């Protein structure tokens, strides 16, 4: 099981509590979260299905290798954090 946590700045706009899912890849894990909260998809991924430019996805504290394809295996990872990059003014 992997636990997905969303930044509170995202929770402000769309209700997305922590969720535990069984998944082989990052993409599968996120898909399960999106099935739970369909509105969440557009906040995390862009029109082409890639992680938004200013969103960061960490797997056990490490950045995603490929933000476009999301096929990265989770292995024994326990935590996914969906965070916002520091940007803007």
């Amino acid at each position, binding site marked *: 099981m992997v636990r997905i946590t969303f930044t509170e700045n995202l929770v402000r706009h769309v209700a997305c509590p922590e969720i535990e899912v069984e998944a082989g890849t990052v993409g599968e894990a996120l898909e399960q979260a999106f099935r739970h909260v369909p509105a969440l998809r557009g906040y995390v991924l862009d*029109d082409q299905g890639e992680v938004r430019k200013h969103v960061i996805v960490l797997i056990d504290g490490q950045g995603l290798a490929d933000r476009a394809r999301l096929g990265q295996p989770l292995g024994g990872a326990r935590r996914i954090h969906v965070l916002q990059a520091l940007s*803007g003014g």
Partner: protein
Amino acid sequence: MAERVWIGTKKGLFRAERKGRWTITRSWFLGVPVSAVLPDPRDGAVYVALNHGHFGTKVHRADDGERFAEIAVPTYPKKPEGLEDVDPYRKTPVPWSLVQLWCLEAGGRDQPGWLWAGTIPGGLFCSKDRGASWQLAESLWYGDDRRRWVGGGYDNPGIHSIVVDPRDSRRLSIGVSCGGVWHSRDAGATFALAAKGMRAAYMPEEHAFDEIAQDPHRIVACPAAPDRVWCQHHNGIFHSRDAGRTWSEVTADAPSRFGFAVAVHPRNPDTAWFVPATKDEMRIPVDGKVCVLRTTDGGKTLTALRRGLPQEHAYDLVYRHALDVDADATTLAMGSTTGSVWLSDDGGDGWQHLSAHLPPVHTVRFG
């Protein structure tokens, strides 16, 4: 008489109402950039486009003008593998992804529920169900000419103006920065470029009149005389008498004819308002003095209106959607990048300050 105005800013949506005097009465989405607002005159709903810096563009609708709920957002199609789509000058990739919803307009009176959305990087979208779903105007997006558009106001090209002809709702004109003016006779199924007479001072001389090279900053048509169209262009003011297909430049004296915003009188096509800035590389009021330009004779003369507007050390810039005239034809509103909002009750002769402390204003709209 105008009773309320919506103010979309870099940090939220505000509404001001006439309660004896104009007063800000409510806010929504504080901290979130608002890029477009549409109070729909057909059914009273209010639509707002948000541009969350991190989480993308979202659209919300309030059927009662009070309680907003998220609705669908236009989505770009999957980019075909191997397709080269780059800005022709900058050679930077054009994203097939919604960067910003730049303008939102209602369809015709005979098209209940229809909405049009102009976006960056250049897609035009139509909803026929009050924003529950959106369809891309495919011939425009997939057409070869669209790939000749270049970034103007933003790094990627965008559609900032959509004019629906009240005589025939299938007829549309759109303004593109930069890509000229495009016209459809079939509700967006097909488009053709026509912006004859527009002049691009920023191009080499031999390309100054290329229609696709034009950078209209904002295009508005007179609702009572839709063939009469006004354009605040990157390097001047232009006027059309044939629904935006051919244009003549307004050369009347003025402190400056550079700017972004234009509003046209709802019944008298000879009257229009503009808010000048010094020039394209000096986007501040001439001599630090804010004024509004008004023509009442079809562009033969321009009068600078200053009463109630700051006349020293003022650096307010009014963006393209931040000037509006109410259907009553005498109430105007404008908002600036430094967070000032003014209202006029006499066609622009005099102005009252609503606030000097709002976030940078992107759009103002009566309704």
